[in-house]
């Protein structure tokens, strides 16, 4: 397999710009404007309801965890609280970053700030990183959010089920930013005018973590860190599990989300935690559509998409043989068939794709 350079400053980044893959025109399913407007329409009500459920459940589970601390009876409540803190907040970071959760801007911004803190993702840096992910989805050297590269670093992904890599990188970046500096890659996609905001947020977070650690030391107890900080580790598994289904094993360097993104049917609890991002092809094609209208969007365009994976388990089973072959050095990806009702893949759009489709 040809070695790929996933760095944003490397030779694949230059190649993507030269070949026209960067900031390219992408395929979109046809939706008449009146229907698109109805799908894009914003509303506060669904996100207020879901935020009340989320923060109510977090308060309940953390409260019971604190009451039962330090006995093992507290463990189930911490596990539930952890998933809401370390995984549900990933989806809130994402949806509020797009500005689509609420109609009211300050509500989006407030939940975005809370979610960024929980996930240890600087709200300025990650807004720009995610904009690039949408411009250049899974374009090698351009997309800063490629989770499983080729060959896939499965050990890193596995330990990240407990947030280890994310938290390490998040804390290191926070300390760097708090010192007034930016990582060179991050500086490549964040305008200079935004950089002072990034540094200010990092300094506020350092103060919050320092206060939490000081309280834990003063009480000689892990309890403050069980509420703030550690749930990013022990509750990360759900967002890593759902996140890996989004693009892994599919094509790189293509300009059709049907080739590099996966929609997966999921149970209602996972969909609440994940804010319907299981409809991921639909989200990438039309990022203006709020999470609560993605099922309707899916119904509208499903005949133009590869069939959705019927479950998380089915998606993992589909992905696993591809990852194993990539680990052995094969340069392959999963290319899924379209239904006869769909517009065909336009080969000229993804001729530059590296690798071969698996049989």
């Amino acid at each position, binding site marked *: 397999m040809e070695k790929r350079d996933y760095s944003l400053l490397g030779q694949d980044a230059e190649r993507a710009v030269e070949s026209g893959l960067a*900031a390219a025109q992408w395929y979109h399913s046809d939706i008449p404007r009146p229907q698109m407007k109805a799908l894009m329409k914003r509303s506060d009500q669904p996100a207020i309801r879901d935020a009340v459920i989320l923060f109510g459940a977090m308060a309940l589970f953390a409260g019971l965890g604190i009451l039962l601390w330090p006995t093992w009876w507290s463990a189930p409540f911490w596990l539930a609280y952890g998933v809401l803190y370390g995984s549900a907040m990933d989806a809130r970071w994402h949806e509020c970053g797009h500005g689509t959760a609420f*109609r009211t801007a300050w509500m989006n911004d407030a939940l975005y700030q809370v979610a960024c803190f929980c996930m240890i993702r600087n709200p300025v840096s990650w807004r720009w990183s995610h904009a690039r992910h*949408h*411009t250049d989805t899974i374009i090698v050297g351009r997309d800063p959010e490629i989770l499983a590269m080729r060959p896939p670093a499965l050990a890193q992904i596995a330990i990240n089920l407990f947030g280890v890599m994310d938290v390490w990188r998040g804390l290191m970046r926070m300390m760097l930013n708090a010192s007034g500096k930016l990582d060179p890659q991050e500086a490549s996609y964040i305008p200079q005018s*935004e950089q002072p905001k990034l540094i200010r947020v990092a300094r506020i977070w350092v103060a919050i973590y320092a206060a939490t650690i000081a309280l834990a030391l003063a009480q000689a107890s892990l309890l403050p860190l069980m509420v703030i900080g550690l749930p990013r580790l022990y509750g990360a598994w759900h967002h890593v599990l759902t996140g890996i289904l989004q693009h892994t094993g599919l094509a790189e360097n293509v300009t059709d989300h049907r080739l590099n993104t996966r929609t997966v049917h999921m149970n209602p609890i996972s969909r609440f935690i994940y804010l319907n991002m299981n409809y991921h092809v639909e989200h990438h094609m039309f990022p*203006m559509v709020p999470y609560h209208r993605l099922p309707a969007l899916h119904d509208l365009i499903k005949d133009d998409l590869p069939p959705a994976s019927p479950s998380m388990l089915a998606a993992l089973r589909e992905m696993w043989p591809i990852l194993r072959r990539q680990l052995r050095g094969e340069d392959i990806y999963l290319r899924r068939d379209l239904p006869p009702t769909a517009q065909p893949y336009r080969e000229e759009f993804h001729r530059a794709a590296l690798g071969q489709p698996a049989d």
Partner: protein
Amino acid sequence: MADWIDACAPDDIDQEDVIRFDHEGRSYALYRSLGDEYFCTAGLCTHEEVHLADGLVMDYTIECPKHNGQFDYRTGEAMRAPVCENLATYKVKHEGGRIWVQI
């Protein structure tokens, strides 16, 4: 001196909506507010040159369909990241049953 260009009929744009208008190789976005006021801006987002006519109009904002950046379409002011650069705006008049843009 900029010319007044006949852009469209008033009802070509729905209330609280936007349409694309091309003239001499350039693209513009024409807006109609809920109060039947008409406005015109450059047609492409200042962030990554996406057509704003595919975006969402809410009150007096236009949201880009690609990255959800927002502008006030009356003034062109960039209101929400990832847009940082303001949009160009153009004068509009409603006259003789047509919408005219000064370009």
